[in-house]
């Protein structure tokens, strides 16, 4: 059996915490029965951070005049995988970006690196006008 939850939020950084804390809560709920307390916290933190990064990217890469832009966050649980998909109508992008050179004291470019390190599987696809970034991790 699978479960789907969808949030549609304004593309505003104010809503990043709502998206990420929802992700953390769902991950924790799923993990609590099957993992130790420590494992469950790590699993929840991975989703909290990955969703923060993906949502922030959606907001910061929106066109400047996109005042009505929305970001959709979809949670799909298919035992034992939790997948979160972030959708926006921004310009296409690639997830194959190199890690920033830390020795040059970079301020940006860490988001996708963090997502790739935390998740078991990260898939980007373009569906019409939509970017869809899917991030999965197994319990």
């Amino acid at each position, binding site marked *: 059996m699978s479960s789907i939850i969808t949030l549609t939020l304004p593309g505003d950084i104010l809503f*990043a915490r709502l998206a990420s804390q929802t992700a953390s809560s769902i991950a924790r709920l799923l993990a609590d029965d099957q993992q130790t307390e420590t494992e469950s916290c790590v699993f929840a933190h991975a989703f909290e951070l990955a969703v923060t990064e993906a949502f922030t990217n959606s907001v910061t890469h929106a066109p400047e005049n996109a005042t009505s832009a929305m970001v959709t966050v979809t949670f799909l649980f298919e035992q034992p995988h939790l997948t979160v998909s972030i959708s926006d109508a921004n310009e296409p992008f690639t997830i194959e970006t190199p890690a920033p050179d830390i020795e040059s004291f*970079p301020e940006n470019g860490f988001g996708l690196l963090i997502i790739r390190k935390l998740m078991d599987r990260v898939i980007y696809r373009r569906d019409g006008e939509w970017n869809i970034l899917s991030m999965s991790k197994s319990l």
Partner: protein
Amino acid sequence: MTITETSQIGIAILSLNGTLDALSAPDFRNNRSVIDPEKSVVIDMENLDFIDSSGIGAIVGASRQKRQPVGGIILSCMNDRVRKVFEITNAQKLFHIFDDTIAAVDFAATRQSARA
């Protein structure tokens, strides 16, 4: 996030409480001690619950502005969640990191007096 600032032996101690992310990073960047290139700053992270790449970027960027990029900002008391983000981004290589703030302040003061 709230920032509480105190000073000991000429070292600014910024205690961060809450979440350092894209929403709160500008508050950190605009702090006067953070902006001042001559000011040594210890960031006490004991009550920092969450940091993301925007928060890491804000601290790394602030460090770059210091006269001594490695050593101008010193970190203390980070929890496992915060430490993990520093490790993933490799940003821990740029900082001296202490388990307690008193040791961090002592270290900063020693470096500062060596420069004087």
